[in-house]
């Protein structure tokens, strides 16, 4: 355990695309460099409403004690976060959770659904062999397609799908994954996105008998493994997303 409770100064908090924001933070004390896939719990109000911290995965580490979070404005918590100004300090707990494992393979396939791209960018950046990286990204529509420039610079191949066909293939990220996942020997999948998408990624991985690591989500109160609120069902009983996860081997998960 190496999590800390610390204050972080907001270096910038700007729109990444409509509805999406990128916040850059500088920790006011030394923290352990997080592993991609780990997350932070941010307190959004010093009063009592909203009461609970909100979990955000690491997007990218940008140098000593500085990191970024990419988020979608979805509810009250993210709305408040989006209104925090440059120069303000916020209360952060982390890094938390296990993070993606570091594995060797002939091909690393990163599968993102919407804002699920957030932790996968950080993962791709820390991978040694960028020529073995394939990105599969799904969005609802073109204006929501974020991080394309960064992904194009990093990965050997990039495939995009949008539900309305306004960018890339029309359909879901699973459609393009199925179409393009050939030559799958020694391939590892890393995925983050909505639960339904992750379930279908797991189906794909099972069919091809390959490894897949999924970033799971569940409502969470403490992030420290004490409230037992964020459990998901696994082959070994309930496991805590905040402690045993958020990254799980897809074979463990009981959908």
């Amino acid at each position, binding site marked *: *355990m*190496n*999590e*800390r*409770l610390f204050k972080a100064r907001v270096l910038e908090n700007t729109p990444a695309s409509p509805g999406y924001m990128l916040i850059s933070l500088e920790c006011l004390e030394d923290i352990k460099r997080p592993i991609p896939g780990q997350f932070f719990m941010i*307190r959004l109000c010093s009063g*009592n*409403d*909203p*009461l*609970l*911290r909100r979990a955000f995965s690491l997007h990218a580490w940008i140098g000593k004690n500085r990191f970024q979070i990419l988020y979608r404005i979805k509810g009250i918590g993210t709305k408040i976060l989006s209104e925090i100004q440059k120069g303000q300090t916020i209360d952060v*707990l982390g890094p938390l959770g296990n993070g993606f494992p570091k594995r060797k393979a002939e091909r690393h396939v990163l599968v993102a659904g919407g804002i699920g791209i957030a932790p996968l960018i950080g993962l791709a950046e820390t991978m040694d062999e960028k020529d073995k990286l394939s990105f599969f990204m799904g969005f609802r529509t073109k204006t929501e397609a974020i991080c394309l420039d960064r992904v194009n610079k990093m990965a050997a191949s990039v495939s995009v799908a949008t539900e309305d066909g306004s960018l890339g293939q029309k359909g879901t990220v699973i459609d393009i994954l199925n179409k393009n996942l050939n030559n799958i020997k020694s391939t590892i999948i890393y995925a983050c996105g909505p639960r339904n998408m992750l379930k279908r990624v797991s189906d794909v991985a099972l069919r091809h008998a390959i490894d897949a690591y999924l970033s799971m989500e*569940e*409502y*969470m*109160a*403490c992030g*420290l*493994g*004490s*409230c*037992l*609120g*964020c*459990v*998901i*069902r696994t082959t070994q*009983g*309930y496991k805590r997303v905040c402690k045993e996860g958020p990254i799980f081997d897809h074979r463990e998960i009981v959908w």
Partner: protein
Amino acid sequence: MVRVEVDIGRLHLKNPVITASGTFGYGEEYSDLVDLNRLGAIVAKGISLKPMDGNPPPRICETPCGMLNSIGLQNVGIDVFIKEKLPFLRRYDTRIIANILGNTIEEYVELAMRLDDVVDAIELNISCPNVQGGGIAFGRDLRMTEELIFSVRKAAKKTLITKLSPNVSDIGEFAKVSEASGSDALSLINTVMAMSIDIKTRRPRLFSVMGGLSGPAIRPIAVRMVWEASRVVRIPVIGMGGIMKAEDAIEFLLAGATAIAVGTANFVNPRATIEVIEGIEEFMEKGKIDNIKDLIGGLIC
């Protein structure tokens, strides 16, 4: 230096700040962030004879100034608790209180007997709203409360604390029965039965439909019940319900609580217990209150 020690039955606490069961794990979850030596006592997550899986997710949801939970007492069971969790807790200079839950009186008795020599006090959970049988099935029935406490009292020597439910019509009656049956102290309140609905899906926001409400939303209810209970018994009351900071804790002390427990605040601010201890001391120093006993039950009305 102000004096903040208090006694709960035969249990002497260096300060009145305790962790509420189920909000501080088995202590180890917080040991990187909190100096456990500074706590008056740690109440461990409720334990049963056999490990329990708990309820399916979603188990929690946020509500105005509070949260609902229906964890369903997921726990490692008494064997693992004694073998793996207690030795860790015992490394610290703080009191360890076990919170126990059974389906039958016999189960409570067995738990109490096995824990009697290894913990400092036993808290009887007769108020968990999230399990079938056991728990609140005892806590809502005066006769069963009486019988249970009486049986456990005979089996265990250590300080016995009964954790009462707010989901009853007259908390005073349960307080009196608990005292008369041999309980050394009372803990209150457990969570308030509640529910929340997602209006888009028309589904409950918890898998178990109903859950227990905790957090600042319930604090005034808790203060009222601590006041009602402490007026009708001589045994000490441990007050809890939405304590986020020292001012909240002092409100409970004034209402009649001898000690207080910090619960949901541990999820929001892992250092809440320490801040409450420091804040109480600061309040006393500023107000020239030398002994915390001068705050307890100090309500003027």
